[in-house]
């Protein structure tokens, strides 16, 4: 019987909230994406909290907050400890995205949902795979194979194909079939008839302009603002779609020899581009090709300046410029600050390239007509001074004292066990066991208050009565050959060089941080957050252009029709879009379309029956295959036998029964027309039918929209009894294989 497959959405259905779904295959639980939103709303993660401990593997598909934002939090708070799988760019850029968000938050609030260490820990568990790498799960997941495939949209973007017993479950969200400057299009269309396809309805109601036209409008809008002496702000993500925008600008600036400065401003911009430069394998063919031919790395940027703080911008205050700054949601980060500064001037332009997340400032500004004024909170981290500083220092010293006390108690605890074990040598005075126990308690409580006065590192032995310095006798062991030594102590460390360099690495954070940000992190000057609410008059131009790099509604529909999954699960998309796509697919793609609610488990186990048989050599020697494209096909009549508990098929001992003839082939009337024309028959289309010669007509009555449902084409050939009729019938037969 088929493999059991269940899908339970944990977040992100019938809405555009972050993506997070539970997929269990024969009891093995996959967490597909682990997203959060830019607001870090803990309520969204409640369903995840319930299931987190039983998850066996996490698969990430894109390096942005909506797809992996909740990973550090879930690892820290929900006992999520499963291994994580992603591609190298998703790992790397995802890590940088998390850093950027953390740093942006940290600058304006006492953000404490997770720390940088939590981010590092979470990403330590990531196993990196390359596209089309088949990863076989060990142990519990025996027999399950996962493979990432190109999804487009973001660098490293992945569609996951999970295979068990020859049945494919495909998870493909936010894919893009179009080839872009830096990315190849998705390979979703190459999957044929997977058992289950999980995809999103995000763009079901959106249709896009042509790419070239869109690019043109984009550039024109920017140049118009710049030439009017205005500044242009592009709120962007940290390491996702921004790469495409950078390439567009870079290319146009080079073509037109423009001199307006462009800045890419995030907390991690330089390291982002450094990493991106080494991800050429993951980018489009044209980028790879240009590198092979000219050694020019497309991301060796000539016109875009990478900056990690706003000082640079302030230096160039009067010059019209383009700034790409994170976050796209305008909630926090550089884009937020710049927006507040620039919004009040009509000559400036804020150009949104993606739909803002629900409930964010960006979303508010994207409504039509845009609001005249918006309320924003300006927050700043300022160093403490005067009274506050004193209070803080006192608090710190109190904490330090407590910690020291605690540490000492622990050390004492250790000491009580360790020298106590070989106490015979170290402490000759052995009082009887009971009293020693009591006295140690007494000692610790008595010395508790004095501990920080006493020299650091000195801890009274538990068994001693009064404080004294510990005394350890140097006990060298001897045997017949002299003192027993540890040979390792005498080995000359030849790896010095290695170690030296490794050490300096080890000291740093795992991911590379820009100096400025590192400075911010390591800066231990006490500080606090000051915020004030203010109302910003929005006078600047606001424009939204779709550069999200997702397939549009029409393409999604045609791709789904082509892939024709046996069962389809729709997630992530507004309620209307989901409902619309559901209706459409039920009619045109496949009868089993599901769109579950949050926490609703749907069973998409295929109702497919299957069993395995062994084909005997004797049977196969009599089979004559006919080749059709990738397939070879034959009719067999076989008798079932059994060897070693294995069903086998052998040739029939009696004459095979006659069977209904099967015609295999896909007749396209247009192709057939050409074929007939090449054979010298006069052909033309007349009212949907193909008129061949004088009298004969060939028609198709199957309706192509229902292909998924009916499957068999109905072809009609009619005409009077003539020689021509038989000739055309002959040609028609030649288009099919008869079995």
């Amino acid at each position, binding site marked *: 019987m088929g493999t059991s497959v269940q899908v339970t959405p944990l977040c992100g259905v019938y809405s555009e909230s972050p993506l997070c779904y539970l997929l269990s295959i024969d009891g093995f639980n996959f967490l597909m994406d682990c997203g959060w939103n830019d607001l870090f709303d803990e309520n969204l993660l409640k369903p995840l909290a319930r299931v987190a401990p039983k998850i066996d593997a996490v698969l990430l598909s894109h390096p942005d907050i909506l797809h992996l934002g909740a990973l550090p939090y879930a690892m820290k708070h929900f006992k999520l400890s499963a291994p994580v799988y992603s591609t190298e760019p998703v790992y790397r850029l995802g890590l940088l995205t998390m850093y950027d968000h953390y740093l942006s938050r940290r600058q304006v609030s006492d953000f404490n949902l997770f720390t940088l260490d939590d981010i590092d820990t979470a990403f330590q568990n990531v196993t990196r795979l*390359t596209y*089309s*790498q*088949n990863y076989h799960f060990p142990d519990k997941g025996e027999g399950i194979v996962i493979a990432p495939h190109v999804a487009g949209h973001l660098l490293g973007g992945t569609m996951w194909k999970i295979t068990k017993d*020859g049945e494919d479950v495909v998870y493909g969200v936010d894919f893009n079939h179009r080839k872009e400057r830096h990315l190849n299009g998705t390979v979703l269309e190459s999957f044929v*008839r997977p058992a289950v396809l999980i995809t999103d309805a995000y763009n079901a109601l959106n249709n896009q302009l042509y790419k070239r036209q869109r690019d043109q409008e984009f550039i024109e809008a920017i140049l118009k603002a710049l030439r009017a002496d205005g500044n242009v702000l592009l709120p962007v993500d940290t390491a996702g779609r921004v790469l495409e925008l950078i390439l567009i600008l870079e290319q146009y600036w080079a073509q037109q020899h423009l001199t307006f400065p462009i800045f890419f401003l995030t907390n991690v911009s330089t390291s982002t581009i450094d990493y991106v*430069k*080494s991800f050429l*394998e993951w980018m489009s063919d044209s980028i790879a090709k240009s*590198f092979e031919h000219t050694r020019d790395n497309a991301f060796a940027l000539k016109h875009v300046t990478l900056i990690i703080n706003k000082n640079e911008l302030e230096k160039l205050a009067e010059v019209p410029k383009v700034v790409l700054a994170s976050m796209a949601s305008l909630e926090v980060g550089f884009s937020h600050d710049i927006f507040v500064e620039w919004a009040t001037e009509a000559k400036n332009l804020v150009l949104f390239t993606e739909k803002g997340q629900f409930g964010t400032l960006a979303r508010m500004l994207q409504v039509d007509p845009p609001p005249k004024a918006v309320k924003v909170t300006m927050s700043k981290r300022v160093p403490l001074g005067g009274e506050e500083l004193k209070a803080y220092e006192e608090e710190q010293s109190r904490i330090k004292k407590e910690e020291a006390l605690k540490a000492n108690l622990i050390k004492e605890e250790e000491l009580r066990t360790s020298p106590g074990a070989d106490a015979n040598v170290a402490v000759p005075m052995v009082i009887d066991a009971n009293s020693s126990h009591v006295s140690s308690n007494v000692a610790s409580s008595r010395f508790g208050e004095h501990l920080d006065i006493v020299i650091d590192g000195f801890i009274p032995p538990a068994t001693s009565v009064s404080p004294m310095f510990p005394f350890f006798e140097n006990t060298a062991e001897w045997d017949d050959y002299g003192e027993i030594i540890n040979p390792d102590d005498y080995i000359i460390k*030849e790896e*010095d*060089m290695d170690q030296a*360099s*490794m050490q300096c*690495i080890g000291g*740093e954070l795992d*991911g*590379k941080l820009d100096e400025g940000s590192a400075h911010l992190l390591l800066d231990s000057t006490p500080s606090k957050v000051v915020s004030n609410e203010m109302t910003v008059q929005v006078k600047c131009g606001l424009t939204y252009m779709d550069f999200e790099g997702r397939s549009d509604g029409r393409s999604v529909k045609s791709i789904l029709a082509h892939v024709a999954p046996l069962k389809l699960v729709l997630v992530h998309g507004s309620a209307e879009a989901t409902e619309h796509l559901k209706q459409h697919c039920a009619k045109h793609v496949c009868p089993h379309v599901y769109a579950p609610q949050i926490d609703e488990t749907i069973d998409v186990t295929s109702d*497919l*029956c*299957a*069993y*395995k*048989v*062994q084909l005997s050599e004797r049977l*196969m020697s*009599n*089979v004559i295959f006919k080749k059709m*494209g*990738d*397939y*070879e096909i034959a009719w*067999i*009549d076989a008798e*079932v*036998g059994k060897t070693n508990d294995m*069903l086998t098929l052998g040739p029939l001992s009696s004459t095979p*029964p*006659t*069977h*209904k*003839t*099967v*015609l*295999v*082939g896909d007749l396209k009337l247009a192709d057939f027309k050409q074929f007939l024309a090449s054979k010298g028959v006069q052909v033309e289309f007349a009212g949907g039918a193909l008129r061949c010669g004088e009298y004969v007509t060939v028609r198709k009555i199957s309706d192509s929209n229902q292909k998924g449902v009916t*499957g*068999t*084409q*109905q*072809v*009609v*050939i*009619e*005409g009077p*009894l003539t020689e021509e009729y038989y000739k055309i019938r002959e040609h*028609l*037969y030649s288009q099919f294989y*008869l079995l």
Partner: protein
Amino acid sequence: MTHATKAIYRLLLSDYVKVSKVSVEDMLYDEQDILRTMDKIEVIDFHQTLEVNGIRFWCYTAGHVLGAAMFMVDIAGVRVLYTGDYSREEDRHLRAAEIPQFSPDICIIESTYGVQLHQPRLIREKRFTDVIHSTVSQGGRVLIPAFALGRAQELLLILDEYWSNHAELHNIPIYYASPLAKRCMAVYQTYINSMNERIRNQFANSNPFDFKHISPLKSIENFDDVGPSVVMASPGGLQSGLSRQLFDKWCTDKKNACVIPGYVVEGTLAKTIINEPKEVTLMNGLTSPLNMQVYYISFSAHADFAQTSTFLKELMPPNIILVHGEANEMARLKQKLITQFADRNAKIISPKNCQSVEMYFSSEKMAKTIGRLAEKTPEVGETVSGLLVKKGFTYQIMAPDDLHIFSQLSTANITQRISVPYSGAFGVIKHRLKQIYESVEAPSEEPDVPTLIVHERVTIRQESENYVTLQWSSDPISDMVSDSVVAMILNISREGPKVTAVAEAKKTEEETEKMAQKVIYALFVSLFGDVKIGEEGTLVVTVDGDVARLDGKNGEVECENEGLKERVKTAFRRIQSAVRPIPLSAS
């Protein structure tokens, strides 16, 4: 090839074209040819599985140079591993060759180093840095002749790191002199992800191939030769070019040193000076004393015997094919491996050039029966009939109606409608048809025009006074029936109504049987040649001394040779079905 290999390939070959200064006719290929190959090259990433005509393959890191790969090819479940040049030792920037997850059935493995053993990497590196350190600190110059790509980068990493750790050396310059230098570095700076953890961790800080103490050098004109320095220059063999120019300049001073860092080709100057001759010939033809120190420290990344034998021990391939090695060395390796794997009875082959090795693997062909056909798992003895669909090396059996569900193929029905001129009475057709066919029925519900259905296949309707139409859905038997009906209708109109009762000469069962036997005998003779009629209707077939007895009634065959038995049986079955009347009822 892998991404990095493709980039390096392009560099190396165009460099060859530029360097080889032969006449146009002698040129094996030019820049245009290289460009044309670039479009043909498909890239594959490590571990990425590709499929071509059902043959799947993927590659593992080989650890020889950047981008080097070992290929695993899977043909219908038989796996072949080709190692190419590989090294199991992790160095400064490359990962060691991986041990594949699955054991291959055949392992094609290089044997360059045969039974030799390498010095440990750390000792080699120490010798290397010590030699250089002592030379430059005594005021000498160090020349390292090396290929521009591959091992050179490893040496540069060692030097750069050594310099960083020794502040006293900072005023001594290191030059990387090669016309390719800059472009090679671009490749190395990009494909960081094909390298080992160490480099990738360093990359988190800064690109380790952005050397701090090494500067590129374009040509000797830009070289300011004052005081001690270290120069890595190509070519590695000291035949000509920059490395040779420097050699000529420096070879007389005994303070200077030349470090040869790897394999050198026979007949080159580098090979000659390893034996430390007293004198050498300079490029300008003069001889000069060789006073400079010469060291040979091999950094070439090929597996040695220890690596090869542990690699094979872990993989346990039942068949090993040794390639790429000098014949004697290979023979010694073969002997040693045979003794080592004696208990596992692994087959070890070392073919000569152009000698093909053939191996046969009988793999069990498994098929998956799916869909409607598989609703019930059949018992032994039942029959299974359906479409066998082969894609690549996977087989599926399914009902024709399911074909479109499980594959991209679709089935079709062709309905044929043909009009035949006929102006006679419809009753005549019916009468004639009944004489030929057993089943000639009128449709169950009353049609608007006179209609007949023959064997539930062909429908005949009298559409008007002047013609009748025949409609049927295509298959060989229906086509045949319709043809006979058409022929009959045409005959009626030609001959006019002529109703004669034909006295049917009824053949007896016996006669039919006899006829059939005769036919079978005749066909068997044409098939097998030597066929005799035995007693009670048996046929004795003799082929090459094997005798088969066929019982003409039930088709039983007695024969000792299985192959012949099968053939006789099949032939008999086919003849039987040809001789018997065609069953018209659709099954």
